[in-house]
């Protein structure tokens, strides 16, 4: 009896996490953004337990899908390590705040941030790409030698890019780390807009670099939650395993989708998630009613 229940829940958690992780990976997001709602709404799990379990899957997703991005030269690891100072500090702040802030407040906050990110993405779509190239040799990005290039397979050549507004990027990343630890998400959903609008990275570079950073960000809160004993292996185990498998599928999909399509898909997902977050904040659960 116990064995059957165990096997059933393991299979359910595995299937759910493979599906969400593949979708998350294809959008350059970690699966946590889907895992927490699924675990709380359908799995009827307490939110803190879902967050702690999700953090492990977020790490697994990031690490499992990092290799193809690194090998194809899309990940800017220098930008990543600089921004990780801010994301990990944010994550520690999130761990400290986790027990203090009300979950309802966080859902509201997150819904607002998602909508702002979605509108930023839409605005950027209509922008003229060729903006005035002022060469400021004393800015942070130049001092830290963050400017780089990436191979664009569509153009068949390397595309050089300059990194801008690092201090603004750091501030946004601190917030992303905070939200990541509080809600058990990768915050790729916040990191990518931050890197697009503040640092002005090409979308494929920001997707790959964000994905890379998510692991270290989630590990900062992950070690804290693990040491605290918040991570239930019976839930976190199958979810993490499913995420590893799903992340591999998702990374392959991301490589095949164009930047513009990816951006549009991203906007749609942002708006849908914002609506779901708002409903959760108001205590309305769609699964509760058979509408």
């Amino acid at each position: 009896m116990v064995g059957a229940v165990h096997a059933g829940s393991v299979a359910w958690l595995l299937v759910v996490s493979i599906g969400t992780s593949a979708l998350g990976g294809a959008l350059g997001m970690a699966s946590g953004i889907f895992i927490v709602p699924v675990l709380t709404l359908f799995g009827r799990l307490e939110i803190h337990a879902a967050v702690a379990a999700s953090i492990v899957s977020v790490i697994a997703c990031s690490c499992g899908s990092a290799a193809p991005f690194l090998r194809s030269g899309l990940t800017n690891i220098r930008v990543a390590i600089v921004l990780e100072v801010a994301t990990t500090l944010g994550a520690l702040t999130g761990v400290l705040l986790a027990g203090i802030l009300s979950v309802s407040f966080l859902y509201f906050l997150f819904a607002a941030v998602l909508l702002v990110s979605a509108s930023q993405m839409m605005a950027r779509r209509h922008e003229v790409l060729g903006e005035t190239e002022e060469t400021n040799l004393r800015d942070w990005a130049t001092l830290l030698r963050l400017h780089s290039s990436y191979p664009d397979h569509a153009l068949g050549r390397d595309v050089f890019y300059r990194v801008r507004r690092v201090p603004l990027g750091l501030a946004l990343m601190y917030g992303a780390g905070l939200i990541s630890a509080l809600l058990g998400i990768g915050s790729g959903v916040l990191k990518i807009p931050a890197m697009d609008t503040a640092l002005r990275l090409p979308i494929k570079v920001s997707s790959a670099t964000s994905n890379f950073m998510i692991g270290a960000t989630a590990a900062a809160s992950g070690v804290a939650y693990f040491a605290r004993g918040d991570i239930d292996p019976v839930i976190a185990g199958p979810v993490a395993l499913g995420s590893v498998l799903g992340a591999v599928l998702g990374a392959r999909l991301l490589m095949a989708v164009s930047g513009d399509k990816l951006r549009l898909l991203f906007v749609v997902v942002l708006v849908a998630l914002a609506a779901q977050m708002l409903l959760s904040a108001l205590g309305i659960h769609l699964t509760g009613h058979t509408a």
Partner: protein
Amino acid sequence: MSTGLAGRSELDRLLASVLHRGTWLGGSVIALGLALPMAGWSGASSTMIGTRIVTAGIALLIVLPVLRVFLMLVVFVRERDFRFSAIAMLVLAIMLLGSVLGVVSSESPGVSSIANRR
């Protein structure tokens, strides 16, 4: 731009293989732990051992990004890139502070009373 592209992509490849292998190792350990109670001889002890193995796999996954930052630190130090060595060391210190924070808050009651709802 002074550090050659070759050096940078070498680090990229190293990190790629460590993260790839580490994830599959962690995932395999978790799979082993999950499969154990289902392998036939069902009982409380095999479930308990299985859960321990799953926990070890989870620990492996959590430590993997910490190892990644440590490897970056080693490479930056070897390249005499002291500015980035300091940055990597700072990230590592923050991560280790996280584990201390977790242990401390687990010892103080009330802060985290997290139980699963059945």
